């Protein structure tokens, strides 16, 4: 498969298709009645047109459309594949090829000739429209809040056909304040229910400033069988139940007015009196609540956005409680599962959903923009630049990037040191800079951004850069590498983070005592992050710090190997497959699985962990991805999703990098959390050792 650009792939594909087309057409000249040739020509034209339009060849697609239509007529028997038609098609094919491969060529005349003659042959006015003009976006109206009443049901077999009502409702919710009432009157008794059929109908009240078309869009795949009705509700309604019912046509106004006179709740009375179905009242009440909430919302919006200050320890306590809640919730889930009572299980599921939402909310409370840290550094840079007699400016980007509060605090010292280093050792004095052809003022850049599940913070300067020779010399001097060793750049530069390493010729007050970089690295690693240093293209040095977004709780996949249970971070998991006995028996030495045509190496964790138990007969493989590469981890059992509260391992185990931490399971026992990157390294080491021993 061609890497990179689909448009490039299309060009190659188009060439093949055009050749195919040419062959079909030439053969068609000889045997005009061969239906297969007509089909093949049509299909080639169809694909060229369809794919071409996708990859920027709209004009070509529009032109091809006419030829394709002509061949469609032939397919349907309405047009004969005469020699002149085939001749035209061959000329058209030439033009198409040119339009794709030589876009600068002016083919307007040739195109016109072909199209005119084609039109004559086909006999009907060439569909002037050609490619349908895309409907232009409706003139944008000022976004205004509007309240809508939406009712719909689904065809009985909608679920079988892949429609998910929950997703439709979620889409509606994404448009604004939404209240949903599910009406169950059409649900048959339990004994008669077919689990694959859809019996519910929904009444939805939606307040949104999105246009009506956005609502229609939600239902485009179901509107034919959905009994869909969308009506606007007057925003100024007082929201009385009676009004709503009358508005919906459920009951005459006169009846409502008569009832209002008595004391009991209107809805109750109406139902008792048989004037209105209970479902209708239920739904109207929902609309009423929705209206009241809308009014409260508008009042709130009128007030300025408010915030409060909270002592940091309270937030920490809150996080601890949430962490404990997550653990207890896991116990509840386990109990509920072994208990089997569906009512308890339902409660446990509800608990799980609430705990997860609580966890998300608490996490977000603790997120603070890194700008608060960056602004402290302005003063630092100013003072340093004055103290060291160098002109330095600080440029920051990504101040709005958010990080967990504790992480920000613990980043302060490492970042201060990195900035000091840049200014002290990296950026040169004004004279030296000018002599080197640079601007007199040096620049230190602080950048922060999110990348996947990580935050990346980089400290860049446009100074002297890294002196490879001096670094190599210092590393040899400190006994870190044997003399004359040849290391790849990134490994050599990592030496800078070793204790006692400083190539500074002069030790200034600021830095250079050699105590700095290793402390920086340890500080970053204690945040479960990584730090790298390297040269910048164009001169200068770049230090890149990568940190995981959350410290405390992650989503994990709980698995069992032998007696032990382990957690695999869910974001790394791609899929789980079974390890067939055949694959298991077949592989010794190189272990690979064939996953849909791709060879994926796998690691038997029970071997790596020296599990004494014999392997389960039906082992599972959890495919994880690390950047570009995918690896399978063979486990005895995949237990399931698990909200994992991370507990750190003590110093005694902190050098076993394959385990990044541990967690307490629902039954009180401990599961170790796998660090995929180091796990793979460890496995690699084992295979290397085994290969050495086997004398390979």
């Amino acid at each position, binding site marked *: 498969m061609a890497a990179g650009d689909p448009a490039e792939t299309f060009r190659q594909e188009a060439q093949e298709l055009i050749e195919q087309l040419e062959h079909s057409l030439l053969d068609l000249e000889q045997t005009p009645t061969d239906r297969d040739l007509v089909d093949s020509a049509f299909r080639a034209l169809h694909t060229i047109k369809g794919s071409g339009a996708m990859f920027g060849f709209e004009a070509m697609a529009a032109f091809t459309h006419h030829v394709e239509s002509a061949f469609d007529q032939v397919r349907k028997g309405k047009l004969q594949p005469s020699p002149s038609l085939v001749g035209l098609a061959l000329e058209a094919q030439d033009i198409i090829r040119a339009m794709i491969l030589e876009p600068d060529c002016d083919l307007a005349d040739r195109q016109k000739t072909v199209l005119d003659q084609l039109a004559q042959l086909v006999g009907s006015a060439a569909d002037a429209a050609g490619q349908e003009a895309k409907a232009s976006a409706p003139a944008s109206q000022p976004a205004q809040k509007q309240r809508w009443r939406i009712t719909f049901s689904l065809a009985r077999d909608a679920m079988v056909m892949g429609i998910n009502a929950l997703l439709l409702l979620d889409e509606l919710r994404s448009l604004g304040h939404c209240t949903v009432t599910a009406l169950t009157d059409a649900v048959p008794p339990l004994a008669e229910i077919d689990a694959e059929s859809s019996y519910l109908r929904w009444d939805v009240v939606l307040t949104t400033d999105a246009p009506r078309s956005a609502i229609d869009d939600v239902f485009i795949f179901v509107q034919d069988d959905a009994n869909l009705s969308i009506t606007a509700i007057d925003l100024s309604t007082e929201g009385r139940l009676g009004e709503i019912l009358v508005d919906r046509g459920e009951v005459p106004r006169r009846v409502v007015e008569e009832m209002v006179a008595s004391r009991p709740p209107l809805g109750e009375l109406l139902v008792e009196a048989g004037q209105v179905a209970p479902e209708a009242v239920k739904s109207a009440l929902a609309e009423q609540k929705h209206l009241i909430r809308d009014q409260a919302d508008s009042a709130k919006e009128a007030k300025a956005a408010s915030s409060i200050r909270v002592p940091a320890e309270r937030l920490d306590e809150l996080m601890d409680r949430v962490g*404990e809640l997550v*653990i207890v919730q896991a116990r509840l889930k386990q109990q509920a599962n072994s208990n089997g009572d569906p009512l308890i299980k339902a409660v446990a599921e509800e608990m799980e959903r609430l705990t997860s939402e609580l966890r998300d909310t608490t996490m977000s409370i603790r997120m603070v923009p890194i700008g608060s840290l960056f602004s402290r550094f302005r003063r630092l840079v100013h003072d340093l630049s004055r103290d060291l007699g160098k002109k330095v400016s600080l440029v920051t980007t990504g101040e709005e990037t958010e990080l967990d509060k504790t992480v920000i605090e613990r980043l302060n010292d490492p970042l201060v040191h990195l900035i000091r280093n840049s200014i002290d050792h990296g950026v040169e004095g004004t004279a030296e800079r000018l002599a080197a052809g640079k601007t007199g003022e040096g620049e230190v850049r602080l950048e922060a951004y999110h990348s996947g599940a990580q935050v990346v913070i980089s400290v860049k300067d446009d100074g002297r850069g890294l002196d490879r020779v001096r670094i190599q010399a210092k590393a040899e001097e400190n006994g870190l590498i044997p003399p004359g060793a040849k290391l790849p750049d990134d490994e050599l530069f990592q030496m800078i983070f070793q204790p006692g390493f400083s190539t500074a010729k002069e030790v200034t007050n600021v830095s250079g005592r050699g105590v700095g970089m290793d402390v920086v690295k340890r500080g970053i690693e204690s945040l479960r992050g990584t730090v790298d240093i390297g040269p910048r293209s164009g001169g200068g040095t770049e230090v890149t710090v990568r940190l995981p977004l959350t410290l405390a709780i992650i989503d994990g996949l709980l698995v069992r190997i032998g*007696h*032990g*249970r382990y957690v695999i971070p869910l974001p790394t998991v791609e899929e789980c497959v079974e390890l067939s006995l055949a694959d298991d028996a077949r592989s010794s030495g190189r272990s690979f699985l064939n996953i849909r045509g791709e060879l994926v190496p796998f690691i038997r964790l029970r071997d*790596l*962990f*020296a599990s004494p138990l014999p392997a389960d007969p039906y082992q599972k493989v959890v495919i994880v991805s690390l950047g570009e590469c995918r690896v399978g981890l063979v486990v005895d059992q995949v237990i399931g999703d698990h909200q994992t509260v991370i*507990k*750190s*391992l*003590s*110093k*005694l*185990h902190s050098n*076993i990098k*394959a*385990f990044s*931490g*541990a*967690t*307490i399971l629902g039954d*009180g*026992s*401990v*599961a*170790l959390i796998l660090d995929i990157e180091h796990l793979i390294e*460890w496995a690699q080491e084992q295979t290397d050792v085994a290969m050495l021993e086997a004398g390979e």
Partner: protein
Amino acid sequence: MEVLTLGLQGEIFALEADIVREILDLVPVTEVPNAPAFVGAVINVRGRVVPLCDLRLKFGMERSQSSRDTRIVVIEVLIDGEPTIVGLLVDKVYEVTEITADSMEAVPRIGLRWRPEFIRSVGKRGADFVIVLDIEQIFAPGPQSNDLTAA
């Protein structure tokens, strides 16, 4: 000095009482693959994941066989300058008792089965010798072997 006396394969050892946090019955143990045998597992102590050390292994004895008397002594010890909570797997816990200064003798350099660096002193409890351990030394990182038997 107040000590907690404990038994390992019939021998009596002692720890300073003030580093002892609590004493637990045997709890479910989670093995840590690739860990040194001495600290081969972790346990859950009140929601904290704590390493479990098999002291017998440090003394070149065979791995503990759990019995009704087996206990886990949870202590707090300085490792690399940091206070760390650690669990010690022992065969039996006797009691907290006083060892008076005059009953303590200096560690003899010879004639002792155990490496002297890990012993603080030798005392007496009734008719038995009690070997007071220097826990910090036992956990001190360094190029020591994981074996306390005298070379």
